[in-house]
């Protein structure tokens, strides 16, 4: 089914502080913009798939949203995989379209931890709270320490990831954080949970994004010339508890990426640009290793020397990622992949023909990969 389904439209809200807006309202704004971008009417939509808001999970959220949008979709609902869910929903949509379950799908996600509650990211890890084990950053720090000790990965190498991505965000007028970062500034950045500093951690943001999917055939019959084909996708899952993971330096991004690349018929060296879920810098490093861009353990040197910046060998997070564009909804990485493939990105990478996008949830335990290509 490689290339049979396309992303025909993308939409988003502003990112940052959006006080007084609920997630239903944010989702509707993103969907309205995605439909306008695709140039189709709401009534054409017969599937609505949504990731439930992380900071305020609700029962049957997908049905609540459908009602607010006046939709009675054939296929609809919410799918919980943490940050991996957005791409997994796109994959599910593609399979549903391919098998005649629906024709036009909206996939969307909104959350507002910035002006709402960020409790989901700071809570205790069960009874281990007795030992002071709290919060999401510490889980990633635990992976980072093992990687640093086992392979000699350095703080500066993590810093170079932040420097490259913040540079891209500074050039994006829609980014929440438009302040570039130098390596010296990174070194002066305070520890949050050593070995991770403040500037290793993504933003906390309000925001929503949405995509419209349909078959390539339908897009062609509607005269769309900028619909971006989905070449491949894949998923993976490992121990949700960091402590139980047999090898802290390996992740399920490996099986997810391999599945997606195999479906796309591509090798890592065929990929021109990457939009990698950068909730923390270490996530980028380990995902690029898992995808086969660098050998296991060699992600540190790979990410250094400006390789990830536009103009480098593998431009990553060309609109600023979670570190700079917005911490939510994660789906912005797909939107930027689509813009790059269409050729209308703010920081357009010349002659980019293929883009890999990663989404992941929990402490790197649930992963989803998407491979996009040029409009035909």
């Amino acid at each position, binding site marked *: 089914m490689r290339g049979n389904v396309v992303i025909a439209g993308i939409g988003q809200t502003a990112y940052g502080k959006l006080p007084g807006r609920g997630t239903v309202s944010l989702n509707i704004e993103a969907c309205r913009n995605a439909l306008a971008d695709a140039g189709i009417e709401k009534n054409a939509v017969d599937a609505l798939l949504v990731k439930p808001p992380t900071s305020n999970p609700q029962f049957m959220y997908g049905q609540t949203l459908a009602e607010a949008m006046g939709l009675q979709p054939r296929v609809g609902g919410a799918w919980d995989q943490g940050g991996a869910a957005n791409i997994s929903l796109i994959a599910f949509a593609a399979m549903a379209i391919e098998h005649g379950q629906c024709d036009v799908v909206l996939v969307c996600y909104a959350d507002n931890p910035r002006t709402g509650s960020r409790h989901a990211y700071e809570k*205790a890890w069960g009874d281990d709270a*007795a030992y002071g084990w709290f919060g999401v950053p510490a889980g990633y720090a*635990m992976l980072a*320490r*093992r990687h640093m000790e086992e392979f000699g990965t350095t703080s500066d190498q993590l810093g170079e990831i932040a420097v490259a991505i913040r540079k891209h965000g500074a050039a994006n007028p829609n980014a929440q954080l438009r302040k570039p970062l130098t390596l010296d500034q990174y070194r002066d950045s305070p*520890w949050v949970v050593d070995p991770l500093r403040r500037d290793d951690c993504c933003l906390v943001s309000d925001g929503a994004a949405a995509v419209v999917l349909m078959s390539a055939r339908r897009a062609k019959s509607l005269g769309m010339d900028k619909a971006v084909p989905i070449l491949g996708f894949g998923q993976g899952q490992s121990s949700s508890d960091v402590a139980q993971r047999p090898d802290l330096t390996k992740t399920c991004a490996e099986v997810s990426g391999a599945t997606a690349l195999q479906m796309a018929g591509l090798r890592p060296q065929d990929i021109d640009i990457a939009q990698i879920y950068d909730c923390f810098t270490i996530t980028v490093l380990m995902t690029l290793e898992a995808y086969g861009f660098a050998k296991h353990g060699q992600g540190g040197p790979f990410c250094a020397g400006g390789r990830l910046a536009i103009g480098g060998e593998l431009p990553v997070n060309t609109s600023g990622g979670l570190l700079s564009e917005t911490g939510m909804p994660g789906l912005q990485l797909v939107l930027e992949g689509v813009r790059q493939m269409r050729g209308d990105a703010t920081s357009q990478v010349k002659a980019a023909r293929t883009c890999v996008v990663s989404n992941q949830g929990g402490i790197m335990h649930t992963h989803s990969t998407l491979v996009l290509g040029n409009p035909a």
Partner: protein
Amino acid sequence: MDPTEDMIEAAFPAPQVNELTAPYWKALEEGRLSFQRCAACAHAWLPARSECPRCLATEPRWETASGRARLVSWVVYHHAYHDYYATRLPYNVAVVELDEGPRLVSNIVDARSDLWIDMPLDVVIQREAGTALARFRPA
């Protein structure tokens, strides 16, 4: 007692002991670190479960650990996510693997030099706000 200390004691994030985890915490109170082992396939694990995650058999047995372990990884908190820990910054949290196989989250104490991954450790049971915890020191 100093009223401030009293307030901190009250805020300790104590384990939520239930039927499943009670034997673990009771053993620690008695000075023993224990783990579960499957009667059917001999797989060993922590934390407490009612079924073996390898063969799905029920009624696992409790076994006392040797207390010998290795350091898998560790972090140092410079930000407090809970009031109880605000006065203890910076403090470490570690992932530890027992010689018998089970993994747990803990703290490393009495470290006279730098920590390093895979360093051998011994359990030391310490009281924190009235609760016995399994911490580890370099062997």
